[in-house]
């Protein structure tokens, strides 16, 4: 009971403390009487603060029966100061304050002095003992009046004679602080005001001034203190009527009644919401932009409320416009494409009605919409993620509109360019890039894109010119230097074919200007440039010179195997069409047989990958076989964990080279069965869907092990898989499908490809093609895309290729999930990739 009593006293619950102390006193009066007196004193002070003077008198009467008179004298006076005015107050209080032998504490004296000052009454004359104090109080009154009348200097003059030892010296500091505050010295004012004794009335009155001077104590943000602050600030800033509204709205907001809070302000503040930079504007910004910060649990209701504003609000155009903006930005991932488009168009129209036409703003707005529609939606495996644009037609429309509205909008151009690239709309991209190079002559990104595109379509001179200009703008950009070296080699090749050796050698010399000492750079490392220069000379120019180049390359290359592999593939790329020679084949095979190692394998896989991605690269079936054999042997030798990780990450489970990674994984796991990264690889290579509920215990165990070892990267990967599993619908959940709407006799079970009537394919042909394609490697598929692309309608070809890839990677995991969406319910959730037949997903 005692500890509870002490807690009551500490938290200001004096009545409860008093009741329990009465019982405790019956048990041990000597011990608990001081506490009982303390509780009663606290209760009286609380009652005085609430204006319950008669109740306080009753408690005081009781207190007189248990406390010594000296102990309650100050309290008695304090209470009488509330009820007694004028002379009676002064005659009671002033003698005590003036008496240096008084038993009152400094705090009690200060409180009484505050009462005297706040009485704002004229003093009785005649008692010389009281004259000095009375004069000081009157000086404080006059000084306060001077500050209020806009004479801060006069106020300072008035309070100067008040000594530091005076009972009202804290009021002098208050006056000085106010005077400084109103004389454009808020910092000085704040410094003075913050020196006041914290339990005094001037200290209380200083708080709003301190807040306005930037001395706002964040720890006082909540609770009744903040409420009184709001009232005080409103009063000081001439907005007294706002105080009660704001405190009520604040209370509602803090209790989670967000909509009620909004409605209260909406009803009581006539201009709300507003875009003006004033207090109404700031409240409007708060209420609208809170949608970006509310917890997810409260967001749905709040967004629904804002949405209702867009449905039935035609009177307040500002509110409608602001709500549309917020809804579109918050719900960009959750709204259906058409709804998002409508919202954003509505926002733009209303903005125009309110602020007039602004093409630049509209351009920026449509560029945003285009970018949102062009966001890739990713699915596929960890090693072979595939993407499709969210709404490509919408993206193109919006971005073209954006460019029309403001032809200087570079971001819109770049985004549209990216959309065309993703959709493989080569001609449109070319035309756009040409326009861009005219409009943005000195923009590095534009020049790089235009240069790369020109190289792709073999417009070498133009492309190299763009890239040269890009490098001028960014001399340290190694990617541009790589492209330049590559392009110049291609140009030299072209000149040699055209029998213009002089020009070809000039191009080669220019390629050599970009040479780097780094042998790992396969674009412009010395040995790589030497090989390509040598081969070009051998095939088209001076054979002797070519030999010299190759000899030089052999000595500069990191290893014989690397040299012969690079040279073999380069030879196949640049040899004349009539040549079927493979001059490096025998040496390559011999070099690969010589002590295979994982370190060397990393270099070989990198070379293979470099060429495999190069345009016009032939199918590397032969080289692939050789490297696979090499990897198989290397996996039996000595290798480090990091070498194994590098190889595994470069290949992936579904690529032809990836098939040989299993032995690396097993070797590492035989050494360290708990290795978290290799346990993930093991699951991936096992061929089952990794992100499946049955794997959850193993995934969680891997995550724990990764945490224990401090392997952050692995922990991040595995948590991505865990997130995917957890976001899957429970068993038996039937994802929405348009065929569901066909009724109970719908043919949703049937697999019916919906071909365009104009196409000359039937289902059997389609499936046959699909089977063939799904058995091809990625390289072969890319080749098919290049070769067959012109014969089959692009959308059909894309479907075929995608379907084939899906079939091949059907057993791959889904990628780690994206961040949770703000409001998933706004758009019917697409069925999770892991639960879907990839064929159907891709085709229909």
């Amino acid at each position: 009971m005692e500890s509870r009593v002490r807690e009551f006293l500490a938290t200001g619950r004096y009545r409860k403390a008093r009741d329990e102390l009465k019982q405790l006193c019956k048990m041990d009066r000597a011990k608990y009487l001081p506490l009982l007196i303390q509780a009663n004193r606290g209760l009286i002070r609380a009652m005085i603060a609430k204006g319950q003077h008669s109740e306080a008198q009753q408690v005081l009467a009781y207190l007189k029966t248990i406390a010594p008179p000296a102990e309650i004298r100050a309290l008695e006076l304090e209470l009488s100061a509330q009820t007694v005015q004028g002379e009676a107050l002064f005659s009671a209080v002033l003698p005590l304050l003036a008496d240096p032998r008084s038993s009152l504490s400094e705090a009690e004296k200060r409180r009484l002095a505050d009462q005297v000052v706040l009485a704002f009454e004229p003093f009785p004359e005649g008692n010389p003992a009281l004259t000095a104090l009375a004069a000081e109080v009157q000086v404080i009154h006059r000084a306060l009046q001077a500050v209020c009348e806009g004479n801060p200097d006069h106020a300072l003059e008035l309070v100067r004679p008040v000594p530091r030892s005076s009972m009202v010296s804290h009021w002098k500091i208050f006056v000085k602080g106010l005077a400084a505050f109103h004389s454009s010295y808020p910092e000085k004012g704040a410094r003075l005001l913050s020196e006041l004794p914290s339990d005094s009335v001037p200290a209380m009155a200083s708080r709003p001034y301190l807040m306005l001077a930037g001395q706002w104590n964040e720890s006082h943000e909540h609770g009744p203190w903040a409420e009184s602050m709001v009232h005080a600030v409103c009063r000081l800033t001439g907005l007294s009527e706002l105080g009660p509204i704001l405190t009520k709205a604040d209370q509602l907001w803090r209790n989670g009644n967000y909509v009620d809070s909004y409605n209260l302000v909406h009803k009581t503040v006539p201009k709300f919401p507003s875009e003006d930079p004033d207090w109404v504007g700031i409240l409007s910004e708060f209420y609208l932009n809170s949608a970006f910060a509310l917890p997810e649990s409260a967001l749905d209701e709040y967004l629904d409320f804002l949405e209702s504003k867009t449905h039935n609000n035609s009177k307040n155009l500002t509110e409608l416009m602001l709500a549309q903006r917020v809804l579109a930005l918050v719900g960009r991932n959750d709204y259906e494409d058409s709804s998002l488009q409508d919202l954003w168009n509505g926002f733009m129209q209303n903005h125009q009605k309110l602020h007039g036409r602004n093409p630049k703003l509209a351009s920026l707005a449509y560029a945003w919409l285009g970018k949102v529609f062009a966001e890739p939606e990713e699915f596929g495996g960890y090693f072979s993620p595939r993407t499709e644009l969210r709404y490509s037609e919408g993206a193109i429309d919006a971005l073209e509109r954006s460019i029309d509205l403001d032809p200087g909008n570079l971001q819109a151009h770049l985004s549209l360019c990216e959309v065309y690239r993703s959709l493989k709309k080569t001609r449109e991209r070319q035309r756009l890039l040409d326009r861009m190079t005219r409009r943005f002559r000195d923009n590095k990104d534009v020049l790089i894109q235009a240069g790369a595109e020109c190289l792709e379509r073999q417009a070498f001179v133009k492309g190299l010119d763009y890239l040269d200009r890009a490098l001028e703008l960014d001399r340290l950009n190694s990617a541009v230097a790589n492209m330049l070296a590559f392009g110049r080699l291609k140009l030299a090749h072209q000149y040699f074919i055209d029998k213009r050796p002089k020009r070809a050698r000039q191009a080669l010399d220019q390629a050599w200007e970009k040479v780097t000492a780094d042998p790992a750079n396969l674009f412009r490392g010395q040995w790589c440039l030497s090989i390509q220069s040598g081969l070009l000379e051998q095939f088209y120019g001076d054979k002797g010179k070519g030999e010299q180049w190759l000899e030089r390359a052999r000595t500069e290359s990191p290893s014989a195997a690397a040299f012969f592999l690079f040279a073999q593939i380069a030879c196949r790329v640049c040899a004349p069409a009539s040549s079927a020679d493979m001059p490096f084949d025998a040496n390559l095979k011999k070099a690969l047989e010589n002590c295979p190692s994982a370190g060397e394998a990393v270099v070989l896989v990198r070379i293979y990958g470099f060429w495999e991605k190069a345009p016009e690269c032939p199918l590397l079936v032969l080289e692939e076989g050789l490297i696979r054999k090499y990897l198989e042997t290397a996996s039996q030798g000595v290798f480090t964990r990091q070498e194994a990780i590098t190889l595994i990450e470069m290949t992936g489970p579904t690529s032809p080279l990836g098939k040989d990674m299993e032995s690396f994984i097993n070797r590492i796991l035989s050494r360290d069965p708990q290795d978290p990264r290799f346990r993930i690889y093991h699951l991936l290579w096992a061929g089952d869907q990794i992100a499946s509920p049955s794997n959850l215990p193993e995934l969680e165990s891997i995550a724990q092990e990764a945490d224990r070892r401090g392997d952050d990267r692995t922990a991040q990967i595995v948590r991505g898989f865990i997130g995917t599993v957890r976001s899957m619908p429970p068993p038996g959940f039937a994802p929405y499908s348009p065929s569901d709407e066909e009724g109970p006799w719908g043919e949703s079970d049937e697999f019916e490809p919906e071909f365009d009537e104009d196409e000359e394919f039937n289902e059997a042909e389609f499936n046959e093609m699909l089977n063939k394609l799904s058995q091809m490697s990625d390289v072969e598929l890319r080749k098919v895309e290049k070769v067959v692309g012109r014969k089959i309608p692009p959308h059909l070809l894309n479907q075929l290729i995608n379907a084939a890839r899906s079939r091949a990677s059907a057993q791959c995991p889904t990628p780690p999930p994206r961040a949770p969406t703000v409001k998933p319910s706004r758009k019917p959730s697409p069925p999770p990739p892991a639960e879907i037949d990839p064929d159907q997903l891709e085709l229909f």
Partner: protein
Amino acid sequence: MNPFLVLGISVTADDKEIRKAYLEAVKIASPEAHPQRFKALNEAYEKIKDEPSRLNYCLFNKTCAGNSPADAFLRYARHSLKPRPLRFEAMKEFLRSCAKS
């Protein structure tokens, strides 16, 4: 905080007016004497210093001025309101209300 408020300018102010307001404000709030105010001024200026920035702010501003309506108002008041002295009678009333609280 709303950059127009921090700099004390209208939403229709152009580049010149904004720069002028910014320079005048940082002259008073030097980084040594008022580091926080100086930082706020810089941030505000960066947000609206030229037309593209202003358009971007207009379209995509997501900042929320506080944790609650009162908090937002108090922050606004701190940044933007310069109170006039209360009338003497209002001051008396204000001080008495402080005694009660």
